[in-house]
């Protein structure tokens, strides 16, 4: 997955990062990564052999031997080269498989946890982004950065040993140039970080500018400001470019230092070798003077000595992005949001009369702990919870449905404690009409009958006073609702939910402010539908301010402010 450029730039500027994405790699992917590094080492170890072949061939040419016999050596070189490419591929595939496993595992953990957390969790869009493209950003870290890291740990040492075996001076050149690189990169990286901290503070990212303007486009068009908005964007983008370039001028120095040392290292090895071969430098080799073959051999090793470091440097930003994602995942995991009761899975209806009792229940929300009044509702009874907003009416309904976990006290339903075991079975007997109904992107038929029982909907719709809604939709029951389809208003959605309650034969109806924000006629229809449910034997609990609705219930429970 390509990283947007702005992110690359940002990451370029923050080279020293906390090692945290590493914690995402569990045992199984670690094993794959180990296999991957073995393949990379096999590939790396083949290169000195290939270099030796070239060195031998050139040395033979120089002494006038070996004419057409070079073909055999060339064949060996090609075979080794293909073997090396194969080993690289095996290693890369295993590293990718490791990344794939980590991502699958993290997605599973995230879904397992967050689908059951409801109260005060991160926004749906943020969670979805984390689950999809953000977690995918961990992949290059595992499949590119980690292998580059293990290559850097071994291959330069191997090539250095080969070089030392031939000439200690050439080895010394690499020893000096090699380890100096990280030092200089760190220095430049620090300078870049400082520069970025001074300047990046005001740099908004170009996509944020774009998103802002697209989201505001309807307003911009109404303001007749399209030209002004574009000119303003161009201005800001130009400012962003200038400031970014100012930072990049410093930031790119670190990779230039790397290139420079690599180039100087190779050049010095070449020049040293040339002078030794001419006999002008006689030290450096061990017993005998340096031969042409040996010279070619160490020249071919020199660039490869630096290559793992260069790979590592170009994968730096992968690590930075992965660390950011990992930090986000950890913050989410650490959030103290208890899950709902039960598993949200289908269950057979909990046995027993539809009675609800809440005694001594308290819970903490938004950092404030508070006690809720006791409540007992008999089967078939209808109760209105009344009281000022913020007193905990909605909270009590959520508790009754097992959507919130009480901190203390006991909730009993159908004569049993409401807990992880009973919650799903209890919810199978419930119908819940929330204040704002989320209308999913499905057909009306699937909305009313989510488990596809195929029951006839005419009666249920009529009893919920919802027949007119269906008649007015262009394709009746087959109309798609939700984001991409025909919208239904809040009052319509509540009536459709009541129709579903009739259809499913729910025994307990929980309704949160079912008549709020509605015109009188619609409110009356909803009150009538609730009364109808009550008459058919349902237990009905509503949270409401509406005196008309209160009057239609058997009993009104007044909730006090500081109960």
């Amino acid at each position, binding site marked *: 997955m390509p990283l947007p450029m702005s992110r690359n730039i940002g990451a370029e500027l923050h080279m020293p990062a906390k090692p945290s994405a590493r914690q995402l790699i569990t045992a199984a992917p670690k094993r794959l990564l180990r296999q991957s590094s073995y393949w990379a080492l096999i590939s790396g170890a083949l290169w000195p052999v290939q270099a030796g072949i070239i060195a031998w061939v050139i040395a033979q040419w120089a002494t006038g031997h070996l004419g057409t016999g070079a073909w055999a050596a060339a064949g060996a070189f090609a075979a080794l080269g293909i073997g090396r490419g194969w080993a690289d591929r095996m290693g890369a595939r295993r590293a*990718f498989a490791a990344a794939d496993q980590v991502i699958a595992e993290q997605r599973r953990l995230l879904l397992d946890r967050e689908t059951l957390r409801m109260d005060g969790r991160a926004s749906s869009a943020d969670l979805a982004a984390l689950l999809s*493209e953000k977690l995918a950003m961990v992949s290059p870290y595992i499949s590119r950065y980690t292998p580059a890291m293990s290559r850097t740990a071994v291959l330069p040492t191997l090539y250095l040993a080969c070089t030392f075996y031939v000439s200690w001076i050439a080895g010394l050149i690499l020893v000096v140039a090699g380890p100096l690189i990280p030092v200089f990169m760190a220095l430049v990286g620090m300078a870049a970080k400082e520069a970025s901290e001074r300047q990046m503070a005001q740099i908004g990212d170009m*996509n944020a500018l774009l998103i802002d303007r697209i989201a505001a486009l*309807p307003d911009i068009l109404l303001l007749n400001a399209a030209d002004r908005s574009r000119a303003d964007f161009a201005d800001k983008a130009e400012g962003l470019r200038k400031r970014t370039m100012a930072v990049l001028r410093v930031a790119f120095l670190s990779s230039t230092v790397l290139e420079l040392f690599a180039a100087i290292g190779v050049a010095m090895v*070449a020049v040293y070798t040339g002078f030794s*071969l*001419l006999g002008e430098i006689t030290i450096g080799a061990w017993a005998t003077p340096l031969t042409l073959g040996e010279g070619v051999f160490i020249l071919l090793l020199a660039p490869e000595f630096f290559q793992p470091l260069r790979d590592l440097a170009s994968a730096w930003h992968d690590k930075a992005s992965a660390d950011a994602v990992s930090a986000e995942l950890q913050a989410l995991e650490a959030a103290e949001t208890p899950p709902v009761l039960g598993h949200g899975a289908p269950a057979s209806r909990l046995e027993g009369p539809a009675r609800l009792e809440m005694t001594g229940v308290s819970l903490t929300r938004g950092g404030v702990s508070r006690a809720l009044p006791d409540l007992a509702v008999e089967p078939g009874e209808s109760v209105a919870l009344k009281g000022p907003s913020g007193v905990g009416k909605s909270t009590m309904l959520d508790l009754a449905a097992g959507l919130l976990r009480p901190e203390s006290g006991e909730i009993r339903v159908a004569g049993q404690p409401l807990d992880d075991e009973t919650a799903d079975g209890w919810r199978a007997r419930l119908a819940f009409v929330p204040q704002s109904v*989320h209308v*999913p992107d499905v057909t009306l038929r699937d909305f009313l009958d989510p488990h596809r029982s195929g029951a006839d909907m005419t009666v249920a719709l009529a009893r919920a006073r919802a027949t007119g809604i269906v008649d007015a939709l262009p394709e009746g029951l087959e109309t798609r609702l939700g984001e991409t389809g025909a919208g239904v208003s*809040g009052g319509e959605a509540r009536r459709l939910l009541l129709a579903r309650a009739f259809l499913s034969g729910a025994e307990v109806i929980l309704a949160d402010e079912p008549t709020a924000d509605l015109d009188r006629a619609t409110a009356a229809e909803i009150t009538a539908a609730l009364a109808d449910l009550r008459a058919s034997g349902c237990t009905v609990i509503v949270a409401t301010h509406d005196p008309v609705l209160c009057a239609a219930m058997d009993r009104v429970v007044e909730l006090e402010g500081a109960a």
Partner: protein
Amino acid sequence: MKRLWVILKLLCSADPWAMGRGAALTVVVLIMGAALLGLSGWFITATGLAGIAGIGIAFDVFRPSAGVRFLALGRAAARYGERLLTHDATLRALASLRITLMRRLELWPMEALRRLRGASALTRITADVDALDGVALRLALPLTAGVITHLVAFGLLAWLVTPLIALSLTAGYLIGGALVLLRVAARTLAPSTRAETAMQALRRGAIGLFRGQREVILQGALPDWRARIDTEEAEARAAHDLLDRIDGGAGFALSSLVALLTALVLGLSGGLIAAGGIDAAQAAIGVFVALALAETVLPLRRGVAEIGRMRDAAARVLADVPDGPAPVAAATRSPDPDPDAGIELCDVTLMRPGRDLPLVEGLSFSVAPGEMLVLSGASGAGKSTLLDALAAVSPIAGGEIRCLGVPLADWPESELRQHLMLLPQRSALLGGSIRDNLALSVGELTDAAAWEVLRAVELERVVADRGGLDAILGEGGAGLSGGEARRLSLARALLRKPNILLLDEPTEGLDPATARAVIQGVRSYLPTAAIIAASHRAAEAESADHHRELNGPRGNSIMNQ
């Protein structure tokens, strides 16, 4: 593919000179890299030959060794320049691509634009433009630079070594590289579409699940949803796995190509040396350059593997305007408005989008300059739809609306907007200063004018407390409370000084006292405007000269019988 070409031209035309110099330095870096290895190889072999022949003293060591040093330092410097220049060119191109996108979106119907505001639509747009950023940087630039480098290398090798070696390397790399890369491009087209589709489906599924979480848990439908999301997830990973397999295969093919071509040069050179055509040092140039030219093909495969993704992104970014009602105010000739006429509705019928029953039928009223009318009615009764129709944003099904005496259809869009302003219920601010947000309305904005309008919407104190007009707001106006953001959008609307002002719930979220003051402020700021406000609150009702209640759709009234 034609669309990718359009995008590339667009990216390059932002600043052809910037792109050109970036490309030139890319070539310089590649050539210097190959030259460094070639020269080093030649130097060592030649000195070795000289040493064997015992003519070491006569050998000119200084020019080649200076050349090696120059190429080493020059390559590093050129690489630095290349990175700076290509990033500079890309940043310019990014801005230009995004401006083009905005220009195209401006032609979209309002309904479609409002749908775009969802998080998933916006993420998709950014993902698309990000993918397109790579068309120049990851695809066109390295591809062009690679081909040029090979042509230059051909010339130099033919001159310094022999045309046979030059031809085998250039032909080998160009033909072999092209075959591998074309195959990668062809094979990744379908899987990259698949991967992208699956990722979008995964994101949509997750948003749907998390938004509807309460319902899903209450219905005991979590396992069903999870199974669906897990399927999408597995599909996305399978597609990415396939892409990686193709990518790995291409990497293997390309590194095999390098090994085979180097071997070919080794073998051919042996024959040439035996025949006395070239010496060992010349042959070494060929071998080393063969190895160095790997740099021109190996990095290309990632860019090529993204072609499918880029193609799809280009298709969406350059997509045709989506279907929707034709613009209402689409006249080309300037009308002759009557400033005393206000706004008039004659027998207007409105249909609710997606329904075939009228929402409002036979509605007639007029509002004169200086008067205010309040529209009330239950939610869903058609208040916002009516305001959209009055603002010429959506069409009406029957009747006529006249703005300043001229039917809406006889206005050119931009002239209508000079006289008529709609503040929708959901309006968005921009990140940036408060001044930037206000200046969007009028362009030139004096401090006095800005403070005057902020006073009218009771924001003077709030803005002063935040540090004045240059106080910075976050993305979408973050940092202001809901009520403050609402009033800033209102101020922005007032600055247009429209003859007709249409307000949808202008005081929502304000306490009654502030709401009253704001409505008073609006009326005294625009004493001669005809104002229509949809509202159910007392502040508007008290100040209004006229009232109109909408009774809702026929669907309701039928059921009431």
